[in-house]
């Protein structure tokens, strides 16, 4: 809503700079987007009187004008506008003037004829094309006859106005009008506003109700009020300049005297009005109803629209002529030929209008106001004001009486509140008088009984109906700056992370200390990527109406998003990337729309995690590096059951020979491995190693009970074993057997070498382990260890075919 400060002065004594006023509005009422000064940056633009206007000798469309600009000598200016003529007062940009958006005008020659400046159209002075009246859109603007040559032009065009551009919140529809804004400022500055009065003369001899029959078929909820007036014998013409200025400074385009009058009253009262060409109505019949399926209406903008059953319609003898509260129909539009006007002033249901505006993508000044609500108490006044104004501007007469399709008994709302409640909520110690004064400034009639205020809220503030609304009025007018700043008191509470939150936080830190940087990727992706790398098979959750084909489906894994991140980095020549992500995946649940949200943690590494430096080569990442990261992480979770890694070919996106499922006990909690070369190609990444873990499951799994173990005072004895063994036998097989046969004192088995190079027969590999033996309670005897060790050796030979070396 654009508020002209010049117009505001009709209401209030405001000797306040516009910026200060804007700041006050912002601090007390609604947000302000800025102050617009139409003449800002423009200089030396004056009224010129065209003395002579002759055709240019070398052009069929240019004219050479002699223009009086209030100086001793007239200026010679070449002008190409089709409507230029001698005797006009016009806008002249003098030589070295600045106009519009930083354009400098200099003396020039046009086809050999000197031109000292420029005769301007409105858009050349920075007017938005949408605001320029259509009749002057293709030519220069003609100023009034009484304009004085040489005077700056800005005052004549309302460009010296300062316009406050307010961004009105949905609850403050009252401020979408000059009247409402004036009431608000009156409260802020403690003034009594001068509100507009209506001076309506009805033609007693001409009864409107004899000629116009209005019927409302829609229910009272959808159409609480519907009234019309009839204005006869109008002459359609452009509005006077003062009105055009108010219209364009309010951000609307001047159309003609009738439409401009309705828009002027719309701006004044916030009441949308619609003028119909009375002669286009069938038999003077108007009815209001909901649309039926299949009906059509061509609106003012020339669009043929298929109507929806939620659209409220104005009809004439049941033929749609207007989308209620949104846009008029083309057939009944006021044109130059119109002589009689049927003028509508009505209230429509906010939700219905909102739907119509939304469904037809038709957002107008009228629909915006109906959606936020309007002052039901002012509808008839606004209708009368517009009728009077149309009659005055067009030479018409207002027929006697209002045609009422539906009327509404509008009663003010009464709200009670106590002073102590106000102070209790605000944390203040306001006095009875302070609060009473605020209600008085707001012009809310109030009575005080004890400490209870009974406040009568006028219909212009339909947003107020409960005590909390009054508290807001008191708070903002008292001033938020004046509130003290304290912290909640009362019973203390403990704030700490729960176990899940703590483990999630710890997990992030562990990943970071392992060298992985946290990524936050998109949860929404394509269906294919959403399904990729899923730990368990699941249906996906899809958006009903996505914005783009890239973001349609909620993810089932984090790895998929991390690969997108890697691809983004690779495309920017960043080839060493190590990322992890902690976040939700979304498993669908049978019979339920809402998926099950599970916390996962995943990582992806590519290139080298070691930075190339002097004396340090890059170390390409490999399976064992990512496995080491996972193993270190799982170790610090202190899970009770053992962690095991089982080779798997079950993940089609993963390398079939380099992927392991991860189990805790016998529960599958994730996987780790290299991505399949085909996956790498599809995601546009290089050789990449990933893991994905079900963090929710890990959090739920039992943790090892931690108990101090005395450190043995007795020395340990170690034995090394190296063996040649079939390639198909895994490390896990060997370790399991050693542990099984190791005896009571075997403490640990450590792999220290794996070799399958040239000195090993094909199909075989060499493995070497250190076995550590220790007795907690006594010094081990060497012979006992040897006996235990020999048992292991023979088991390895017999059960795994190992050749001990």
């Amino acid at each position, binding site marked *: 809503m654009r508020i002209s400060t010049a117009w505001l002065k009709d209401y209030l004594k405001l000797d306040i700079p516009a910026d200060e006023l804007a700041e006050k509005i912002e601090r007390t009422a609604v947000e302000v987007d800025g102050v617009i000064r139409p003449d800002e940056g423009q200089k030396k633009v004056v009224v010129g009187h065209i003395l002579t206007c002759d055709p240019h000798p070398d052009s069929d469309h240019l004219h050479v004008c002699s223009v009086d600009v209030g100086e001793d000598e007239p200026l010679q200016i070449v002008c190409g506008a089709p409507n230029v003529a001698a005797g006009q007062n016009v806008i002249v940009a003098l030589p070295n003037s600045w106009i519009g958006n930083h354009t400098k005008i200099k003396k020039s020659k046009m086809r050999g004829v000197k031109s000292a400046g420029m005769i301007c159209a409105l858009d050349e002075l920075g007017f938005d094309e949408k605001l320029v009246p259509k009749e002057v859109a293709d030519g220069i603007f003609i100023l009034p006859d009484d304009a004085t040559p040489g005077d700056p032009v800005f005052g004549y065009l309302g460009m010296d106005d300062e316009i406050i551009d307010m961004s009105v919140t949905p609850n403050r529809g009252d401020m979408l009008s000059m009247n409402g804004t004036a009431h608000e400022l009156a409260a802020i500055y403690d003034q009594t506003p001068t509100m507009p009065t209506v001076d309506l003369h009805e033609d007693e001899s001409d009864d409107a109700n004899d000629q116009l029959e209005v019927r409302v078929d829609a229910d009272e909820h959808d159409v609480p009020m519907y009234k019309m007036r009839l204005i006869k014998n109008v002459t359609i013409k452009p509005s006077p300049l003062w009105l055009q200025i108010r219209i364009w400074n309010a951000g609307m385009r001047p159309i003609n005297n009738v439409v401009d009058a309705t828009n002027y009253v719309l701006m004044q009262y916030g009441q949308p009005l619609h003028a119909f060409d009375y002669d286009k109505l069938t038999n003077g019949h108007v009815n209001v109803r909901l649309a039926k399926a299949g009906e059509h209406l061509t609106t003012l903008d020339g669009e043929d629209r298929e109507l929806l059953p939620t659209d409220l319609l104005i009809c004439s003898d049941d033929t749609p002529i207007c989308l209620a509260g949104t846009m008029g129909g083309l057939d009944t539009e006021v044109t130059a030929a119109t002589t009689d006007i049927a003028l509508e002033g009505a209230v429509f249901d906010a939700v219905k209008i909102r739907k119509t505006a939304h469904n037809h993508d038709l957002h107008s000044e009228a629909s915006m106001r109906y959606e936020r609500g309007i002052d039901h108490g002012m509808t008839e006044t606004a209708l009368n004001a517009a009728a009077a104004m149309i009659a005055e501007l067009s030479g018409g007469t207002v027929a006697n009486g209002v045609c009422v399709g539906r009327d509404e008994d509008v009663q003010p709302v009464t709200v009670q509140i106590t002073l102590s409640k106000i102070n209790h909520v605000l944390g203040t110690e306001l006095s009875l008088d302070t609060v009473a004064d605020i209600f008085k400034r707001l012009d809310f009639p109030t009575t005080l009984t004890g400490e209870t205020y009974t406040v009568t809220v006028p219909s212009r503030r339909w947003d107020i109906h409960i005590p909390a609304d009054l508290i807001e009025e008191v708070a*903002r007018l008292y001033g*938020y700056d004046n509130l003290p700043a304290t912290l909640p008191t009362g019973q203390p509470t403990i*704030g700490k992370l729960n176990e899940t939150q703590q483990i999630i936080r710890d997990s992030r830190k562990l990943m970071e200390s392992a060298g992985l940087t946290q990524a936050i*990727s*998109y949860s*929404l992706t394509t269906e294919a990527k959403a399904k990729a790398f899923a730990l368990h098979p699941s249906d996906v959750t899809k958006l*009903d109406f996505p914005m783009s084909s890239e973001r349609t489906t909620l993810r089932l894994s984090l790895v998929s998003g991390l690969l997108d991140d890697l691809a983004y980095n690779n495309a920017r020549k960043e080839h060493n990337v190590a990322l*992890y992500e902690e976040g939700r995946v*979304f498993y669908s649940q049978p019979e339920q729309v809402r998926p099950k949200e599970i916390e996962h943690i995943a990582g992806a590494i590519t290139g080298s995690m070691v*930075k190339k430096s002097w004396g340090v080569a890059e170390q390409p990442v490999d399976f064992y590096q990512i496995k080491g990261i996972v193993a270190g992480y799982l170790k610090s979770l202190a899970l009770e059951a053992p962690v095991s890694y089982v080779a798997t070919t079950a993940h089609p996106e993963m390398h079939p020979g380099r992927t392991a499922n991860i189990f805790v006990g016998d529960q599958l909690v994730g996987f780790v491995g290299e991505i399949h070369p085909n996956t790498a190609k599809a995601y546009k990444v290089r050789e990449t190693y990933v893991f994905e873990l079900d963090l929710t499951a890990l959090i739920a799994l039992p943790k090892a009970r931690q108990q101090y173990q005395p450190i043995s005072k007795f020395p340990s004895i170690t034995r090394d074993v190296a063996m040649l063994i079939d390639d198909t036998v895994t490390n896990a097989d060997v370790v399991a057997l050693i542990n099984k046969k190791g005896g009571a004192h075997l403490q640990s088995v450590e792999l220290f070498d794996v070799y399958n190079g040239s000195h090993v027969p094909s199909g075989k590999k060499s493995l070497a382990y250190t076995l550590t033996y220790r007795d907690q309670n006594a010094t081990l005897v060497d012979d006992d260890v040897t006996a235990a060790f020999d048992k292991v050796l023979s088991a390895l030979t017999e059960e795994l075919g190992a050749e001990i070396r």
Partner: protein
Amino acid sequence: MSLQDRLTELRDQGLADIKSADVLKKVNQVKVDLLGKKGPITEVLRGMRDLAPEERPKVGAYANEVRDRLQNAIDQRREELEQAAVNKQLAAEKLDVTLPGREIPQGQPHVITQIITELEDLFMGMGYQIVDGDEVEEDYYNFERLNLPKDHPARDMQDTFYITKDVLLRTQTSADQPRSLENHDFSKGPLKVLSPGRVYRRDTDDATHSHQFHQIEGLVVDKHITMADLKGTLTLVANTLFGDQFDVRLRPSYFPFTEPSVEADVTCFNCNGKGCAICKQTGWIEVLGAGMVHPHVLEMSGIDPEVYGGFAFGLGPDRFAMLKYGVDDIRNFYLNDVRFLSQFYKKG
């Protein structure tokens, strides 16, 4: 030559030899030569047999003195030479300490996580619980229970991704607050919760819009919670994130779930309130929305608004990060360019 004179001669000669010994080996040789079993001092002591008994103690004492003197000189010289050798070695071992060390790779938290963590810690310190709601929520909880019935015009402020007519991707983390209100046992004290998390809006991604971003919403409900408490709490948030020198001001605003509703601005950190392009010459930057919990919201959760009241606030870590670090494109937070992520070093 008397034995004494002989000892004196041996002493002086020995001291000179020790002094001139320039390597450890020579020092050792001097020691063997002088103080060894076959050395001259032993020789002298052997010659004491021929002295008168009364002379013996005197010469003996002098001989011991000479021997100690020599031994001390040898020890000292040895230490000097050893130290010189160490010094020589150290000089040879000198490194260019400005060469880079072999760093152990370290990851770091995402800048948004840093901001969320900082605020979580601040609020836990004030007794708040952290609540993680679901990202896929019912329309009923995301909107209706927050006083936003279907067709409410304020729903236009939040374009929504729907899964079905009744299920959506939450547009605000306060979607979980009705549940917190319902489940809280007020006999155990006030409700104080902070809900950080991902939210979604039906927006086209560009420099200032993202279909996915984060929110932190706070809610406090008790028998006596005031708007002054809200103001104090918000001031603390601004001071924690931006610094103590920043002021907070409240402006009226509108949210369906609070009444009164306010928007909070902080002093522009770029110009310290003087006015600049970032703050559009106002000296203030809008950072969060807040208000006193609307009585309907309490009623819908079965809480008597005549007895209980509270405040709620919501802020965007993405926007905070953009303001605090001058990030000019919100998409940076979700593309995970390592050159972006690695710019924000901080505790996790």
